[in-house]
């Protein structure tokens, strides 16, 4: 081995060891765990552990709460994701517009929620949503809208969490859209103008196609993030009302770390992994076919 290769091994060792030991190995072990009945008794004495094959997966698919949790999670990602990306695109277009002044200030303001602590802003929104003295209902009552129990009404709860998610997340993709917009050369717009394209057609035929790779990246990142929904329902609703905001990760947390049914929880986690993986693949495929 050359001196350079020996040095490389040395430089790589800490990071690779840590990533292997505390990331890859647990992920693989997670799949193995999902094929066992690991529970409180196994934590006490590992000899109580039994291999149960796909039993946990069979139990999962037969449980209505599992379907509910995954339905909520997918709905959250499928509704919240596109709305967030739309918000990001609109804000990026506004901030990046030629006429806009104080660009840096607006960019900083719109981005600020991204760096806030999710638990803290979830608490803030919980009070904003309060049915009696929440600011939102009070503002709505001014225009005559009757009080809505945002987090307590099964019809509204997940929607309310989606609004929080958009508020917290749109600045992230906005930054990436702005970067994408700035790579589009003025000559393209110039050429479109000469061909007689108005603002809308310039947007439709120059901006949007040029942003396609950005859409792909932003879409994947947002979807992966949203499918891991946890802190908001944990803090705001505990998964209620009637499990309408229970997410897949929350189900895993409850089963695994509250009831110590770790085999079962590992199966939930692995299904989530499959969902995230397929969401990524679908987006890659969709983008390529266009």
């Amino acid at each position, binding site marked *: *081995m*050359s001196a*350079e*290769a020996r*040095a*490389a*091994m040395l430089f*790589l060792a*800490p*990071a*690779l060891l*840590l*990533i292997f030991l505390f*990331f890859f190995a*647990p*992920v693989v*072990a*997670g799949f193995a*765990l999902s094929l066992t009945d690991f529970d409180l008794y196994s*934590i006490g004495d590992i000899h109580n552990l039994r291999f149960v094959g796909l039993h946990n997966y069979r139990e999962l698919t037969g449980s209505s709460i599992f379907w509910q949790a995954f339905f909520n999670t997918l709905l959250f990602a499928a509704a919240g994701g596109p709305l967030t990306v739309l918000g990001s695109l609109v804000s990026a277009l506004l901030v990046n517009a030629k*006429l806009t002044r104080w660009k840096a200030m*607006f960019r900083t303001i719109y981005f*600020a*929620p991204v*760096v806030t*602590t*999710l*638990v*803290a*802003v979830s*608490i*803030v*929104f919980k*009070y904003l949503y309060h049915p009696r*003295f929440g*600011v939102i209902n009070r503002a709505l009552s001014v225009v005559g809208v009757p009080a809505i129990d945002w987090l307590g009404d099964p019809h509204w709860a997940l929607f309310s969490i989606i609004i929080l998610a958009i*508020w917290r997340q749109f600045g*992230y993709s906005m*930054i*990436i859209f702005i*970067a994408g917009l700035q790579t589009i050369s003025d000559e393209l717009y110039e050429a479109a103008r000469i061909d007689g394209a108005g603002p809308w057609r310039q947007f439709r035929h120059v901006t949007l196609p040029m942003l396609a*790779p*950005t859409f792909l*990246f932003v879409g*994947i*990142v947002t979807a992966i993030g949203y499918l*891991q929904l946890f*802190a908001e329902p*944990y*803090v705001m609703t505990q998964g209620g009302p009637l499990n309408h905001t229970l997410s897949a*990760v929350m189900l*895993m947390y409850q089963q*695994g770390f509250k009831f110590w049914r*770790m085999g079962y929880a590992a199966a939930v*986690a692995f299904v*989530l*992994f499959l969902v*995230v*993986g397929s969401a*990524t693949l679908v987006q890659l495929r969709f983008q390529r076919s266009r």
Partner: protein
Amino acid sequence: MNRTLKSFLLHAALIVGAALTLFPLFWMLSASFMANGEATQFPPHLIPHAATLDQYRQLFTRLNLGRAFFSSAFVASMVTIFSVLFNSMAGYAFAKLRFGGRDRIFGLLLAALVIPPQVGMLPLFLLMKQLHLVNSYWGAIIPSLATVFGVFLIRQFMLDVPQELLEAARLDGASELRIYWSVVLPLARPILATLATFMFMSTWNDFMWPLIILSDQSHYTLPVALANLSGEHVQDLELMMAGSVVTVLPVLMLFVFLQRYYIAGLMAGSVKG
């Protein structure tokens, strides 16, 4: 539509958007200076009539939130220091040193970016239990010490470090360690600042893993302590807002001062490697 009208509408939209974006944060800050019950009065107060620090006093005396503040600061600082060291070493090796299987190993690492971290959390907890790290700061720190994202970020930056510079140092007889320390690291200062900012903020804000691994109040980080507190003090709106301010303000300030680095990292992360 003429230019002035257009500009007016554009800025009106921008300002409304900014107001909506800032309102929750403004209200959090404002309510945190109110006395008990003021924020829930009717008609509502958006600004405290007589600003008070009572809520903060309670948090730091009776409720011992200072302890959680320390925990958060310690965990986030340790992760920041060591992750910058380990990730920069690995990123450098992947970018600039030649060894067999380099690209294959790196490709494998990248695939990990689509694995949700929760998938490994159950076995990770059991592993930590074996290592007697449950309910310890190190249990919260260790899994973040090296991250695929960090290695990736550093590698992308170091690809642009001129090879001749390294060769020249080698000809001068500098050891590999010395080259990394005195030639490469000084050049990489901007990206190291980016990674440090990133790691500090994401560790500070992290919730699920600390919630799992820190089982005792004495070790809670701020988000865990805050979530715990909010269950016991549902009625104490003003108190919870003060707790949220204590949690959010440090990262928000850090962002305002270091946003150049933070946003650079975001962009670098979004460029496909």
